C-alpha cells in the first residue's frame, strides 16, 4: 500500500487537469495502488485568503475515505490560529513563495511555536512548477532551502516535510537538519530512489506524486524501482507517513491496482 503525501485538488491557470473532482482524483490514485493521500487546495495557492479554499476542499473530499485534507495556512494573515483550531488535523501546509513572505518573517515564529505545542507536522511547498517553464509574467522562485534549514534549527521539535524539493535541495535539507523530510515528486536521476537512498536515510523520504500536476504513474514507477529493497521500499511507500501523520492503514480495505 502507498500513502501519497503530495496531492492537490482544484484549478491552476497554467495547466488543464483531467481530474477535477475528489472522486476522479481518488479513482486516479486508487488505480495505481495509493490507499491514502494528503490533499491540499490548489486554489489556496493564489487566492488571497486560503481559508475559504480550505473550506471548499473539506466539503469536496467529505465522504471520500482516501483523503486526509491538509489546510493551507498563511501565517502572515491574522486568522491562522482559527485555521489550526479545526478538529482532526494531521498536518498543515504553507506556501511561502506564492504567499509572498519569508520564512524569517516575524509572523512565522509564533506560528511555529503553536505547531510545536500541537505536535503538528508542517508541509512546506518548495515550488509548484519548474521555475524555468513558468509563465513569463509570473516568475515565482522556489523556497530557499537554506531558509528551511534555519527554520528547522530554530524549531527542532516541529517535523517539517518539504514538498517538491529538487534532489540537491533534498540532500542538503536532510543532511543539515534533524527534523526535515522530503518527498520524491521532483527528484529524478538515474535509478532515482535506489540512488537517493544511498544519500539520504530511508526514514527521511516519503512518497509524494504531486498529482494532478504530474502524471501519478511517474512517481509510482520511481518507487517501484526500489521494490527489491523491501524495508526501505515500505518506509518510503507508507510506514514513514503512517508514523509521522498517525495514519492507520489496517482500517483500509486492500487496494486493487487497475
Amino acid at each position, binding site marked *: 500500500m502507498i500513502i501519497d503525501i503530495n496531492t492537490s485538488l482544484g484549478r491552476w491557470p497554467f*495547466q*488543464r*487537469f*483531467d481530474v477535477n473532482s475528489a472522486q476522479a482524483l481518488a479513482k486516479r490514485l486508487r488505480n495505481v495502488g495509493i490507499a491514502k493521500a494528503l490533499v491540499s487546495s490548489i486554489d489556496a495557492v493564489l487566492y488571497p485568503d486560503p481559508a475559504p479554499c480550505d473550506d471548499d476542499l473539506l466539503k469536496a473530499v467529505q465522504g471520500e475515505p482516501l483523503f486526509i485534507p491538509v489546510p493551507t495556512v498563511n501565517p502572515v494573515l491574522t486568522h491562522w490560529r482559527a485555521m489550526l483550531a479545526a478538529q482532526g488535523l494531521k498536518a498543515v501546509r504553507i506556501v511561502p513563495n506564492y504567499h509572498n513572505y519569508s520564512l524569517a518573517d516575524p509572523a512565522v515564529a509564533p506560528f511555529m511555536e503553536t505547531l510545536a505545542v500541537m505536535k503538528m507536522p508542517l508541509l512546506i511547498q518548495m515550488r509548484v*512548477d*519548474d*521555475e*524555468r*517553464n*513558468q*509563465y*513569463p509574467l509570473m*516568475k515565482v522562485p522556489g523556497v530557499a532551502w537554506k531558509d528551511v534549514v534555519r527554520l528547522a534549527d530554530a524549531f527542532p521539535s516541529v517535523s517539517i516535510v518539504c514538498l517538491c524539493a529538487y534532489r540537491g535541495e533534498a540532500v542538503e535539507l536532510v543532511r543539515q537538519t534533524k527534523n526535515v523530510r522530503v518527498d520524491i515528486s*521532483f527528484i*529524478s*536521476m*538515474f*535509478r*532515482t530512489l535506489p540512488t537517493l537512498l544511498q544519500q539520504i536515510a530511508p526514514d527521511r523520504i516519503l512518497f509524494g506524486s*504531486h*498529482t*494532478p*500536476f*504530474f*502524471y*501519478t*504513474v*511517474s*512517481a*509510482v*514507477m*520511481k518507487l*517501484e*524501482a526500489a521494490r527489491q529493497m523491501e524495508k526501505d521500499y515500505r518506509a518510503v511507500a507508507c510506514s514513514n507517513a503512517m508514523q509521522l501523520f498517525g495514519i492507520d492503514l489496517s482500517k483500509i480495505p486492500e487496494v486493487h491496482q487497475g
Partner: protein
Amino acid sequence: MIIDIHTHLAKESGTSVEAILAEARRMGISRLVNLGSAPLSATPEQVVSANDRTLQLAQQHSDMIIGFCRLNPTHEKRFLLQEITRCIENGNLKGIKLSVERNARSPQLDPILEACARLNVPVLYHAWYKTIGKAMDESTPADIADLARRHPGVTLIMAHLTAGGIRGVLDIQPYPNVYVDTSGSQPFSGIIEYALEALGAERILYGSDMPIRDFSCQLGRVYGANISRQARDRILGRNAKELLSL
C-alpha cells in the same frame, strides 16, 4: 518494443554503460539512442573525442545502442562536413545531435541540414521555452519550426516536449517533418495528450534524457497519459523503429 530516443551515455555522469543497459533491459527498453556528451562550446578536438566514444559504444553494443553524431555548428563548415562523413557516411552513427551553441535560425545550420538531407538522417535538436536560465543562442520551438520550414526534406526531432509546452507543440504543428520527444523538465500531466491531439501519435517519440533523468519516471509520463494502446505503442517504439529503419 521500447526505444529511447534521448539518452546520454556520458563518461562524466559516473554511471557505467553496463549499469545503464541493465536498467534499460529491466524497464523493457530494447534500444537506446545515445546522443553522446560534450562540453558546451566544445572545441573540434572535444567533438571528435565525444563522437569517438559514441562510435565505439554503438559498435560494442550494436544490439542495444544507436549513436548520433554530436556537432557544434559554430565550427568551420569544412570540419563539420568532415565529421559527418567520418561518423555517418564512413561510421555507424544514424543521426545528428545539436544543442545550444547556435540558434536553429542561424544560416550556419544550413550545410549540416543539407548533408542530412543528402544522407537521409534525422537531427535531434534541443529546444526549450525558458523563463529563466536561457543560454544566449538556445533555440525555442519557434526557432525549430523556422529550421523545419527552411529544410522541409530533413527530419527534425525537437527535444523536450514538456519544456516547449503547449506553445511549442503549436509552433511545430504545421511542419510534418518535425517530431517531438517526450523528455524535458518534470512529468507534467496533460502535455502528452495535448501533443497527441495536435500532432498525432506518429510525431511523438519516447525520450528520457537519462541519466540526468530516470527511465522509470519518464516512462511513467507515457504510461500515465490517457491515450490509446495503439498511440502508446507508437510513442514508445514504433515511430522510432520506422524513423531509424530498425
